[in-house]
Protein backbone atom coordinates (compact mmCIF):
# COMPACT_ATOMS: atom_id res chain seq x y z
CA UNK A 1 0.00 0.00 0.00
CA UNK A 2 2.79 2.40 0.94
CA UNK A 3 6.35 2.04 -0.28
CA UNK A 4 9.26 4.27 0.61
CA UNK A 5 12.29 3.84 -1.61
CA UNK A 6 15.45 5.12 -0.03
CA UNK A 7 13.94 8.44 1.09
CA UNK A 8 16.33 11.18 2.19
CA UNK A 9 15.38 14.58 3.62
CA UNK A 10 17.99 17.21 4.41
CA UNK A 11 17.76 20.61 6.07
CA UNK A 12 20.88 22.48 5.05
CA UNK A 13 23.75 20.39 6.35
CA UNK A 14 21.55 18.24 8.56
CA UNK A 15 20.21 14.98 7.21
CA UNK A 16 16.97 14.44 9.09
CA UNK A 17 16.00 11.26 7.26
CA UNK A 18 18.65 9.14 5.54
CA UNK A 19 17.84 6.54 2.87
CA UNK A 20 14.85 5.07 4.65
CA UNK A 21 13.02 2.30 2.81
CA UNK A 22 9.77 0.91 4.10
CA UNK A 23 6.92 -1.30 2.98
CA UNK A 24 3.46 -1.06 4.51
CA UNK A 25 0.76 -3.52 3.45
CA UNK A 26 -2.98 -2.98 3.64
CA UNK A 27 -4.19 -3.84 7.14
CA UNK A 28 -0.82 -3.27 8.81
CA UNK A 29 -0.41 -1.53 12.11
CA UNK A 30 3.15 -0.30 12.01
CA UNK A 31 4.86 1.45 14.89
CA UNK A 32 7.74 3.89 14.55
CA UNK A 33 9.96 4.49 17.57
CA UNK A 34 13.16 6.38 18.16
CA UNK A 35 14.68 9.02 20.39
CA UNK A 36 13.79 12.70 20.02
CA UNK A 37 15.25 14.09 16.82
CA UNK A 38 15.46 10.68 15.18
CA UNK A 39 13.44 11.93 12.21
CA UNK A 40 10.09 10.30 12.93
CA UNK A 41 7.93 13.36 12.39
CA UNK A 42 10.07 14.43 9.45
CA UNK A 43 9.34 11.06 7.88
CA UNK A 44 5.60 11.67 8.38
CA UNK A 45 5.96 15.10 6.83
CA UNK A 46 7.64 13.56 3.77
CA UNK A 47 5.03 10.80 3.39
CA UNK A 48 2.05 13.15 3.78
CA UNK A 49 3.37 15.80 1.39
CA UNK A 50 4.52 18.56 3.76
CA UNK A 51 8.19 18.10 2.81
CA UNK A 52 9.59 17.11 -0.54
CA UNK A 53 12.42 14.60 -0.11
CA UNK A 54 15.78 15.32 -1.73
CA UNK A 55 16.14 11.69 -2.79
CA UNK A 56 13.95 8.63 -3.07
CA UNK A 57 10.31 8.00 -3.95
CA UNK A 58 7.10 7.64 -1.99
CA UNK A 59 4.46 5.40 -3.56
CA UNK A 60 0.91 5.06 -2.28
CA UNK A 61 -1.50 2.59 -3.83
CA UNK A 62 0.37 2.55 -7.12
CA UNK A 63 0.61 6.38 -7.32
CA UNK A 64 3.96 8.09 -7.12
CA UNK A 65 3.07 10.76 -4.53
CA UNK A 66 6.59 12.16 -4.09
CA UNK A 67 6.30 15.94 -3.94
CA UNK A 68 2.52 16.03 -4.42
CA UNK A 69 0.79 18.70 -2.31
CA UNK A 70 -0.59 17.42 0.99
CA UNK A 71 -4.24 17.96 0.06
CA UNK A 72 -3.91 15.78 -3.05
CA UNK A 73 -2.29 12.99 -1.05
CA UNK A 74 -5.07 13.32 1.50
CA UNK A 75 -7.68 12.95 -1.21
CA UNK A 76 -5.98 9.76 -2.39
CA UNK A 77 -6.73 8.35 1.06
CA UNK A 78 -3.55 9.04 3.02
CA UNK A 79 -3.76 11.53 5.86
CA UNK A 80 -2.13 12.28 9.17
CA UNK A 81 -2.51 13.89 12.57
CA UNK A 82 -0.12 16.43 14.04
CA UNK A 83 2.08 15.83 17.05
CA UNK A 84 1.40 19.39 18.15
CA UNK A 85 -2.35 19.31 17.67
CA UNK A 86 -3.81 21.79 15.21
CA UNK A 87 -7.50 22.11 16.00
CA UNK A 88 -9.60 24.73 14.22
CA UNK A 89 -9.71 26.51 17.57
CA UNK A 90 -12.64 28.88 17.09
CA UNK A 91 -14.92 26.24 15.61
CA UNK A 92 -16.99 23.64 17.42
CA UNK A 93 -15.86 20.03 17.62
CA UNK A 94 -18.69 19.11 15.26
CA UNK A 95 -17.59 21.69 12.67
CA UNK A 96 -13.96 20.57 12.95
CA UNK A 97 -14.92 17.01 12.10
CA UNK A 98 -17.37 18.13 9.46
CA UNK A 99 -14.65 19.94 7.54
CA UNK A 100 -12.87 16.61 7.33
CA UNK A 101 -16.03 14.81 6.22
CA UNK A 102 -16.75 17.40 3.50
CA UNK A 103 -13.72 16.18 1.57
CA UNK A 104 -15.50 12.94 0.66
CA UNK A 105 -19.09 14.10 1.03
CA UNK A 106 -19.63 17.40 -0.77
CA UNK A 107 -23.17 17.80 0.57
CA UNK A 108 -23.22 19.53 3.94
CA UNK A 109 -26.12 17.41 5.20
CA UNK A 110 -24.32 14.13 4.44
CA UNK A 111 -21.10 15.45 5.96
CA UNK A 112 -22.91 16.37 9.16
CA UNK A 113 -24.29 12.85 9.54
CA UNK A 114 -20.86 11.36 8.89
CA UNK A 115 -19.28 13.77 11.37
CA UNK A 116 -21.76 12.70 14.05
CA UNK A 117 -20.87 9.06 13.46
CA UNK A 118 -17.12 9.73 13.69
CA UNK A 119 -17.56 11.92 16.77
CA UNK A 120 -19.44 9.12 18.51
CA UNK A 121 -16.81 6.57 17.46
CA UNK A 122 -14.08 8.76 18.94
CA UNK A 123 -15.95 9.30 22.19
CA UNK A 124 -16.42 13.02 21.62
CA UNK A 125 -20.21 12.92 21.63
CA UNK A 126 -20.75 14.97 24.82
CA UNK A 127 -18.35 17.65 23.54
CA UNK A 128 -19.67 18.01 19.98
CA UNK A 129 -20.81 21.60 20.53
CA UNK A 130 -17.80 22.76 22.54
CA UNK A 131 -15.28 25.10 21.01
CA UNK A 132 -12.21 23.11 20.00
CA UNK A 133 -9.84 25.45 21.81
CA UNK A 134 -11.68 24.91 25.09
CA UNK A 135 -11.00 21.15 25.12
CA UNK A 136 -8.40 19.61 27.43
CA UNK A 137 -5.41 18.00 25.74
CA UNK A 138 -6.72 14.43 25.84
CA UNK A 139 -9.86 15.44 23.96
CA UNK A 140 -7.91 17.60 21.55
CA UNK A 141 -5.84 14.54 20.67
CA UNK A 142 -9.05 12.64 20.03
CA UNK A 143 -10.38 15.50 17.93
CA UNK A 144 -7.21 15.36 15.86
CA UNK A 145 -7.90 11.67 15.19
CA UNK A 146 -11.62 12.21 14.56
CA UNK A 147 -11.04 14.95 12.02
CA UNK A 148 -8.53 12.86 10.08
CA UNK A 149 -10.80 9.83 10.26
CA UNK A 150 -13.70 11.81 8.80
CA UNK A 151 -11.78 12.07 5.51
CA UNK A 152 -12.12 8.25 5.31
CA UNK A 153 -8.42 7.51 4.92
CA UNK A 154 -7.17 4.07 3.95
CA UNK A 155 -3.81 4.86 5.49
CA UNK A 156 -3.67 7.04 8.59
CA UNK A 157 -0.48 8.37 10.18
CA UNK A 158 -0.85 9.03 13.91
CA UNK A 159 1.87 11.24 15.37
CA UNK A 160 2.09 10.79 19.16
CA UNK A 161 -1.62 10.81 19.89
CA UNK A 162 -0.85 9.27 23.29
CA UNK A 163 1.74 11.73 24.54
CA UNK A 164 0.85 13.65 27.67
CA UNK A 165 -2.15 11.54 28.65
CA UNK A 166 -2.85 9.97 32.04
CA UNK A 167 -3.23 6.17 32.30
CA UNK A 168 -7.02 6.21 31.97
CA UNK A 169 -6.93 8.51 28.95
CA UNK A 170 -4.16 6.37 27.50
CA UNK A 171 -6.20 3.19 27.79
CA UNK A 172 -9.08 4.97 26.08
CA UNK A 173 -7.05 6.07 23.10
CA UNK A 174 -5.30 2.71 22.72
CA UNK A 175 -8.77 1.23 22.52
CA UNK A 176 -9.76 3.84 19.92
CA UNK A 177 -6.69 3.12 17.77
CA UNK A 178 -7.55 -0.60 17.89
CA UNK A 179 -11.11 0.12 16.84
CA UNK A 180 -9.97 2.28 13.91
CA UNK A 181 -7.63 -0.50 12.83
CA UNK A 182 -10.52 -2.92 13.21
CA UNK A 183 -12.55 -0.85 10.74
CA UNK A 184 -9.95 -1.67 8.10
CA UNK A 185 -7.77 1.46 8.26
CA UNK A 186 -4.07 0.80 7.83
CA UNK A 187 -2.09 2.65 10.49
CA UNK A 188 1.40 3.95 11.09
CA UNK A 189 1.85 5.28 14.62
CA UNK A 190 4.69 7.22 16.18
CA UNK A 191 4.78 6.77 19.93
CA UNK A 192 7.20 7.04 22.83
CA UNK A 193 5.13 5.03 25.27
CA UNK A 194 6.70 1.61 24.82
CA UNK A 195 4.13 -0.32 26.81
CA UNK A 196 1.34 0.88 24.55
CA UNK A 197 3.41 0.44 21.42
CA UNK A 198 4.43 -3.12 22.26
CA UNK A 199 0.83 -4.18 22.73
CA UNK A 200 -0.53 -2.27 19.75
CA UNK A 201 1.90 -2.63 16.86
CA UNK A 202 2.22 -5.67 14.67
CA UNK A 203 5.59 -4.49 13.47
CA UNK A 204 7.97 -1.81 14.72
CA UNK A 205 10.55 0.29 12.92
CA UNK A 206 13.27 2.02 14.90
CA UNK A 207 14.77 5.25 13.61
CA UNK A 208 18.01 6.70 14.96
CA UNK A 209 19.77 9.79 13.59
CA UNK A 210 17.45 9.61 10.58
CA UNK A 211 18.30 6.02 9.72
CA UNK A 212 16.29 2.90 10.06
CA UNK A 213 18.39 0.74 12.36
CA UNK A 214 15.93 -2.02 13.16
CA UNK A 215 12.63 -3.47 12.03
CA UNK A 216 10.66 -6.40 13.33
CA UNK A 217 7.92 -7.69 15.59
CA UNK A 218 7.64 -6.11 19.06
CA UNK A 219 9.37 -9.20 20.52
CA UNK A 220 12.42 -9.00 18.28
CA UNK A 221 12.64 -5.21 18.67
CA UNK A 222 12.49 -5.45 22.48
CA UNK A 223 15.55 -7.69 22.46
CA UNK A 224 17.47 -5.99 19.67
CA UNK A 225 20.84 -4.82 20.96
CA UNK A 226 20.91 -1.65 18.78
CA UNK A 227 17.44 -0.64 19.94
CA UNK A 228 18.34 -1.19 23.56
CA UNK A 229 21.55 0.83 23.26
CA UNK A 230 20.06 3.70 21.33
CA UNK A 231 16.66 3.98 22.89
CA UNK A 232 15.36 1.60 25.52
CA UNK A 233 18.38 1.59 27.81
CA UNK A 234 17.48 -1.89 29.03
CA UNK A 235 15.63 -4.86 27.68
CA UNK A 236 11.93 -4.22 27.57
CA UNK A 237 10.06 -6.89 29.41
CA UNK A 238 6.90 -7.61 27.47
CA UNK A 239 5.44 -9.68 30.25
CA UNK A 240 5.57 -6.75 32.62
CA UNK A 241 4.19 -4.25 30.11
Amino acid at each position, binding site marked *: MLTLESVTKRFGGLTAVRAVSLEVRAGDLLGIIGPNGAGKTTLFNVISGYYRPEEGRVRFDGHDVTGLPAHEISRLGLTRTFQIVKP*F*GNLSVADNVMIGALTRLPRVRDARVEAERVIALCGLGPHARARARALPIALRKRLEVARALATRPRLLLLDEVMAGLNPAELAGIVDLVRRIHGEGVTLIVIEHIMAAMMRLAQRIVMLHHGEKIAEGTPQTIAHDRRVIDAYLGEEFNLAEA
Partner: protein
Amino acid sequence: MSRLAPDRWVALVVFGAAAVTPLLIRDTFILDSVILILLWGALSGAWNVAGGYAGQVSLGHAAFFGIGAYAAALMSARYGQSPWLGLAAGVLLSIGAGAMIGYLSNRLKGPYFALSTIAFAEVLKIVASRWRGFTAGSEGVPVPFRPGFWTLGLGHVAWLYLILVLALLCYALQIYLERSRVGYQLAGVREDEDAAEALGIATRRRKVQAIVVSAALTSACGSLWAQYVGFVDPSHVFSIDLSVRFALNAIIGGMGTALGPFLGSILITSLETYLRATFSGIKAGFTGIYLIIYGVVLILIVRFAPEGLTGIAARLRARSVGAHA
Protein backbone atom coordinates in the same frame (compact mmCIF):
# COMPACT_ATOMS: atom_id res chain seq x y z
CA MET B 1 -39.79 25.38 8.52
CA SER B 2 -37.30 25.87 11.29
CA ARG B 3 -37.38 28.93 13.51
CA LEU B 4 -35.47 31.92 12.23
CA ALA B 5 -32.22 32.50 14.12
CA PRO B 6 -31.95 35.83 16.01
CA ASP B 7 -29.34 37.29 13.64
CA ARG B 8 -31.62 36.54 10.66
CA TRP B 9 -34.37 38.46 12.42
CA VAL B 10 -32.05 41.41 12.89
CA ALA B 11 -31.08 41.24 9.21
CA LEU B 12 -34.74 41.19 8.25
CA VAL B 13 -35.37 44.29 10.37
CA VAL B 14 -32.30 46.12 9.03
CA PHE B 15 -32.95 45.48 5.34
CA GLY B 16 -36.72 45.84 5.81
CA ALA B 17 -36.28 49.23 7.45
CA ALA B 18 -34.03 50.33 4.60
CA ALA B 19 -36.61 49.18 2.07
CA VAL B 20 -39.51 51.10 3.63
CA THR B 21 -37.55 54.29 4.35
CA PRO B 22 -38.33 55.93 0.97
CA LEU B 23 -42.03 55.19 1.44
CA LEU B 24 -42.08 57.18 4.68
CA ILE B 25 -39.35 59.77 4.33
CA ARG B 26 -38.36 61.93 1.40
CA ASP B 27 -35.66 63.88 3.21
CA THR B 28 -32.52 63.56 1.06
CA PHE B 29 -30.20 63.73 4.08
CA ILE B 30 -31.85 60.64 5.56
CA LEU B 31 -31.99 58.82 2.23
CA ASP B 32 -28.34 59.64 1.62
CA SER B 33 -27.43 58.28 5.04
CA VAL B 34 -29.30 55.04 4.42
CA ILE B 35 -27.66 54.64 1.00
CA LEU B 36 -24.19 55.14 2.49
CA ILE B 37 -24.87 52.77 5.40
CA LEU B 38 -25.93 50.08 2.92
CA LEU B 39 -23.04 50.80 0.58
CA TRP B 40 -20.34 50.76 3.27
CA GLY B 41 -22.01 47.66 4.70
CA ALA B 42 -21.92 45.95 1.31
CA LEU B 43 -18.26 46.90 0.89
CA SER B 44 -17.38 45.53 4.31
CA GLY B 45 -19.33 42.39 3.44
CA ALA B 46 -17.19 42.06 0.33
CA TRP B 47 -14.05 42.60 2.43
CA ASN B 48 -15.33 40.04 4.94
CA VAL B 49 -15.29 37.29 2.30
CA ALA B 50 -11.49 37.46 2.24
CA GLY B 51 -10.73 39.02 5.63
CA GLY B 52 -13.35 37.40 7.82
CA TYR B 53 -14.19 34.05 6.25
CA ALA B 54 -10.84 33.17 4.67
CA GLY B 55 -8.72 35.00 7.24
CA GLN B 56 -6.79 36.99 4.61
CA VAL B 57 -6.84 40.39 6.29
CA SER B 58 -6.28 43.01 3.62
CA LEU B 59 -5.72 46.69 4.33
CA GLY B 60 -5.56 47.55 0.66
CA HIS B 61 -9.06 46.85 -0.58
CA ALA B 62 -9.27 50.47 -1.69
CA ALA B 63 -7.24 49.22 -4.66
CA PHE B 64 -10.24 47.28 -5.97
CA PHE B 65 -12.65 50.04 -4.96
CA GLY B 66 -10.57 52.56 -6.90
CA ILE B 67 -10.27 50.32 -9.95
CA GLY B 68 -14.06 50.02 -10.01
CA ALA B 69 -14.62 53.73 -9.42
CA TYR B 70 -12.21 54.79 -12.14
CA ALA B 71 -13.45 52.17 -14.61
CA ALA B 72 -17.03 53.41 -14.33
CA ALA B 73 -16.14 57.11 -14.22
CA LEU B 74 -13.77 57.00 -17.18
CA MET B 75 -16.14 54.83 -19.21
CA SER B 76 -18.88 57.42 -18.93
CA ALA B 77 -16.83 60.65 -18.76
CA ARG B 78 -14.11 59.86 -21.27
CA TYR B 79 -15.76 57.42 -23.66
CA GLY B 80 -19.41 58.40 -23.25
CA GLN B 81 -20.36 54.77 -22.67
CA SER B 82 -22.62 53.27 -20.03
CA PRO B 83 -21.05 53.10 -16.57
CA TRP B 84 -22.41 49.54 -16.40
CA LEU B 85 -19.81 48.65 -19.04
CA GLY B 86 -17.25 50.39 -16.84
CA LEU B 87 -18.48 48.36 -13.89
CA ALA B 88 -17.97 45.16 -15.89
CA ALA B 89 -14.50 46.26 -17.01
CA GLY B 90 -13.60 47.17 -13.42
CA VAL B 91 -14.74 43.77 -12.19
CA LEU B 92 -12.58 42.03 -14.80
CA LEU B 93 -9.54 44.15 -13.88
CA SER B 94 -10.12 43.53 -10.20
CA ILE B 95 -10.36 39.78 -10.77
CA GLY B 96 -6.89 40.00 -12.31
CA ALA B 97 -5.56 42.20 -9.51
CA GLY B 98 -7.26 39.98 -6.90
CA ALA B 99 -5.60 36.89 -8.35
CA MET B 100 -2.26 38.66 -8.00
CA ILE B 101 -2.95 39.62 -4.38
CA GLY B 102 -4.20 36.09 -3.79
CA TYR B 103 -0.92 34.75 -5.09
CA LEU B 104 0.86 37.04 -2.63
CA SER B 105 -1.24 35.63 0.20
CA ASN B 106 0.34 32.25 -0.50
CA ARG B 107 3.80 33.71 0.03
CA LEU B 108 3.15 36.16 2.86
CA LYS B 109 1.33 35.59 6.14
CA GLY B 110 -0.53 37.85 8.55
CA PRO B 111 0.95 41.32 8.92
CA TYR B 112 3.23 40.87 5.91
CA PHE B 113 0.25 40.13 3.74
CA ALA B 114 -1.61 43.17 5.12
CA LEU B 115 1.41 45.39 4.45
CA SER B 116 1.75 44.16 0.89
CA THR B 117 -1.91 44.97 0.21
CA ILE B 118 -1.38 48.52 1.53
CA ALA B 119 1.58 48.88 -0.82
CA PHE B 120 -0.51 47.64 -3.72
CA ALA B 121 -3.21 50.26 -3.16
CA GLU B 122 -0.55 52.98 -2.76
CA VAL B 123 1.03 52.03 -6.07
CA LEU B 124 -2.34 52.34 -7.81
CA LYS B 125 -2.88 55.70 -6.14
CA ILE B 126 0.40 56.98 -7.55
CA VAL B 127 -0.36 55.62 -11.00
CA ALA B 128 -3.79 57.25 -11.00
CA SER B 129 -2.32 60.58 -9.80
CA ARG B 130 0.49 60.67 -12.34
CA TRP B 131 -1.07 59.20 -15.45
CA ARG B 132 -2.63 62.55 -16.33
CA GLY B 133 -3.34 61.75 -19.99
CA PHE B 134 -5.67 58.93 -19.02
CA THR B 135 -6.96 59.53 -15.51
CA ALA B 136 -6.76 63.35 -15.39
CA GLY B 137 -4.33 62.92 -12.49
CA SER B 138 -4.98 64.38 -9.09
CA GLU B 139 -7.62 66.77 -10.44
CA GLY B 140 -9.98 63.83 -10.52
CA VAL B 141 -12.78 62.87 -12.87
CA PRO B 142 -16.22 64.47 -12.65
CA VAL B 143 -18.86 61.97 -13.70
CA PRO B 144 -21.44 63.43 -16.11
CA PHE B 145 -25.05 63.14 -14.94
CA ARG B 146 -27.22 61.62 -17.68
CA PRO B 147 -30.63 60.62 -16.37
CA GLY B 148 -31.61 56.99 -16.85
CA PHE B 149 -30.86 53.52 -15.51
CA TRP B 150 -28.43 52.56 -18.28
CA THR B 151 -26.44 55.75 -17.64
CA LEU B 152 -26.92 55.47 -13.86
CA GLY B 153 -28.28 58.97 -13.52
CA LEU B 154 -30.77 58.19 -10.76
CA GLY B 155 -32.67 59.91 -7.99
CA HIS B 156 -32.13 59.13 -4.33
CA VAL B 157 -34.98 56.62 -4.10
CA ALA B 158 -33.80 54.62 -7.12
CA TRP B 159 -30.25 54.68 -5.76
CA LEU B 160 -31.44 53.40 -2.43
CA TYR B 161 -33.12 50.37 -3.98
CA LEU B 162 -30.19 49.69 -6.28
CA ILE B 163 -27.71 49.76 -3.40
CA LEU B 164 -30.11 47.68 -1.31
CA VAL B 165 -29.99 44.97 -3.98
CA LEU B 166 -26.20 45.14 -3.89
CA ALA B 167 -26.19 44.91 -0.08
CA LEU B 168 -28.54 41.92 -0.15
CA LEU B 169 -26.25 40.25 -2.68
CA CYS B 170 -23.27 40.70 -0.35
CA TYR B 171 -25.34 39.47 2.59
CA ALA B 172 -26.56 36.41 0.69
CA LEU B 173 -23.03 35.54 -0.38
CA GLN B 174 -21.92 35.60 3.23
CA ILE B 175 -24.86 33.46 4.34
CA TYR B 176 -23.76 30.99 1.66
CA LEU B 177 -20.27 31.05 3.18
CA GLU B 178 -21.71 30.29 6.61
CA ARG B 179 -23.40 27.09 5.58
CA SER B 180 -21.81 25.74 2.40
CA ARG B 181 -18.93 23.36 1.83
CA VAL B 182 -16.76 26.19 0.50
CA GLY B 183 -17.51 28.23 3.61
CA TYR B 184 -16.54 25.44 5.98
CA GLN B 185 -13.37 24.83 4.02
CA LEU B 186 -12.47 28.53 4.14
CA ALA B 187 -12.97 28.47 7.91
CA GLY B 188 -10.52 25.58 8.03
CA VAL B 189 -8.01 27.56 5.96
CA ARG B 190 -8.45 30.55 8.26
CA GLU B 191 -7.99 28.54 11.45
CA ASP B 192 -5.03 26.39 10.41
CA GLU B 193 -3.70 25.95 6.90
CA ASP B 194 -1.59 22.86 7.62
CA ALA B 195 -4.51 21.06 9.22
CA ALA B 196 -6.78 22.07 6.33
CA GLU B 197 -4.29 20.61 3.84
CA ALA B 198 -4.22 17.33 5.74
CA LEU B 199 -7.99 17.15 5.37
CA GLY B 200 -7.75 17.40 1.59
CA ILE B 201 -8.48 21.13 1.18
CA ALA B 202 -6.59 22.91 -1.60
CA THR B 203 -5.79 25.82 0.71
CA ARG B 204 -3.93 27.96 -1.82
CA ARG B 205 -6.66 27.72 -4.41
CA ARG B 206 -9.38 28.45 -1.85
CA LYS B 207 -7.60 31.58 -0.62
CA VAL B 208 -7.15 32.93 -4.14
CA GLN B 209 -10.82 32.24 -4.89
CA ALA B 210 -11.94 34.11 -1.78
CA ILE B 211 -9.77 37.12 -2.55
CA VAL B 212 -10.86 37.22 -6.20
CA VAL B 213 -14.57 37.15 -5.29
CA SER B 214 -13.98 39.78 -2.62
CA ALA B 215 -12.08 41.98 -5.09
CA ALA B 216 -14.74 41.68 -7.79
CA LEU B 217 -17.55 42.69 -5.42
CA THR B 218 -15.51 45.56 -3.98
CA SER B 219 -14.88 46.81 -7.50
CA ALA B 220 -18.59 46.68 -8.40
CA CYS B 221 -19.41 48.66 -5.25
CA GLY B 222 -16.70 51.18 -6.19
CA SER B 223 -18.24 51.67 -9.63
CA LEU B 224 -21.68 52.38 -8.18
CA TRP B 225 -20.21 54.67 -5.54
CA ALA B 226 -18.50 56.72 -8.27
CA GLN B 227 -21.78 57.13 -10.13
CA TYR B 228 -23.66 57.98 -6.97
CA VAL B 229 -21.19 60.56 -5.67
CA GLY B 230 -20.35 61.88 -9.14
CA PHE B 231 -16.66 62.53 -8.60
CA VAL B 232 -13.58 60.34 -8.46
CA ASP B 233 -10.16 61.44 -7.29
CA PRO B 234 -7.14 59.25 -6.65
CA SER B 235 -6.24 60.42 -3.16
CA HIS B 236 -9.67 59.37 -1.90
CA VAL B 237 -10.61 56.23 -3.82
CA PHE B 238 -7.22 54.55 -3.30
CA SER B 239 -6.76 55.83 0.26
CA ILE B 240 -5.86 53.71 3.25
CA ASP B 241 -8.74 55.45 5.07
CA LEU B 242 -11.16 53.60 2.83
CA SER B 243 -9.33 50.29 3.19
CA VAL B 244 -9.43 50.68 6.95
CA ARG B 245 -13.11 51.59 6.86
CA PHE B 246 -13.98 48.34 5.02
CA ALA B 247 -12.06 46.32 7.59
CA LEU B 248 -13.25 48.38 10.55
CA ASN B 249 -16.97 47.95 9.90
CA ALA B 250 -16.49 44.19 9.73
CA ILE B 251 -14.27 44.06 12.82
CA ILE B 252 -16.62 46.24 14.87
CA GLY B 253 -19.68 44.35 13.68
CA GLY B 254 -18.19 40.86 13.85
CA MET B 255 -15.68 39.34 11.46
CA GLY B 256 -16.72 36.22 9.63
CA THR B 257 -20.42 36.79 10.28
CA ALA B 258 -22.91 37.77 7.59
CA LEU B 259 -24.60 40.47 9.61
CA GLY B 260 -21.47 41.93 11.23
CA PRO B 261 -20.39 44.22 8.40
CA PHE B 262 -23.84 45.77 8.23
CA LEU B 263 -24.13 46.30 11.98
CA GLY B 264 -20.66 47.81 11.93
CA SER B 265 -21.64 50.09 9.08
CA ILE B 266 -24.81 51.24 10.83
CA LEU B 267 -22.81 52.16 13.92
CA ILE B 268 -19.75 53.67 12.29
CA THR B 269 -21.46 55.46 9.41
CA SER B 270 -24.18 57.05 11.51
CA LEU B 271 -21.75 57.90 14.30
CA GLU B 272 -19.46 59.59 11.83
CA THR B 273 -22.28 61.46 10.10
CA TYR B 274 -23.73 62.61 13.41
CA LEU B 275 -20.42 63.67 14.93
CA ARG B 276 -19.36 65.49 11.82
CA ALA B 277 -22.66 67.33 11.60
CA THR B 278 -22.62 68.25 15.30
CA PHE B 279 -19.04 68.92 16.21
CA SER B 280 -17.27 70.12 13.10
CA GLY B 281 -17.05 73.54 11.58
CA ILE B 282 -15.71 76.80 12.95
CA LYS B 283 -18.95 77.45 14.85
CA ALA B 284 -18.38 74.54 17.20
CA GLY B 285 -14.99 75.94 18.06
CA PHE B 286 -13.28 72.58 18.04
CA THR B 287 -12.30 71.71 14.50
CA GLY B 288 -11.64 68.00 14.28
CA ILE B 289 -12.93 67.17 17.75
CA TYR B 290 -15.36 64.72 16.15
CA LEU B 291 -12.35 62.62 15.18
CA ILE B 292 -11.30 62.41 18.82
CA ILE B 293 -14.77 61.34 19.97
CA TYR B 294 -14.91 58.88 17.09
CA GLY B 295 -11.56 57.42 18.14
CA VAL B 296 -12.60 57.05 21.77
CA VAL B 297 -15.80 55.24 20.78
CA LEU B 298 -13.78 52.83 18.64
CA ILE B 299 -11.42 52.11 21.52
CA LEU B 300 -14.36 51.44 23.84
CA ILE B 301 -15.93 49.04 21.35
CA VAL B 302 -12.71 47.11 20.83
CA ARG B 303 -12.13 47.02 24.58
CA PHE B 304 -15.59 45.75 25.52
CA ALA B 305 -16.57 43.80 22.41
CA PRO B 306 -13.40 42.34 20.93
CA GLU B 307 -15.43 39.93 18.84
CA GLY B 308 -17.69 42.64 17.51
CA LEU B 309 -21.36 43.40 17.99
CA THR B 310 -22.48 39.94 16.88
CA GLY B 311 -20.02 38.58 19.47
CA ILE B 312 -21.85 40.43 22.27
CA ALA B 313 -25.13 38.91 21.14
CA ALA B 314 -23.62 35.44 21.08
CA ARG B 315 -22.17 35.93 24.57
CA LEU B 316 -25.49 37.12 26.00
CA ARG B 317 -27.24 34.15 24.39
CA ALA B 318 -24.68 31.72 25.82
CA ARG B 319 -25.17 33.27 29.25
CA SER B 320 -28.96 32.95 29.14
CA VAL B 321 -28.65 29.33 27.93
CA GLY B 322 -26.23 28.72 30.81
CA ALA B 323 -28.68 30.28 33.27
CA HIS B 324 -31.54 28.10 32.10
CA ALA B 325 -29.51 24.89 31.97
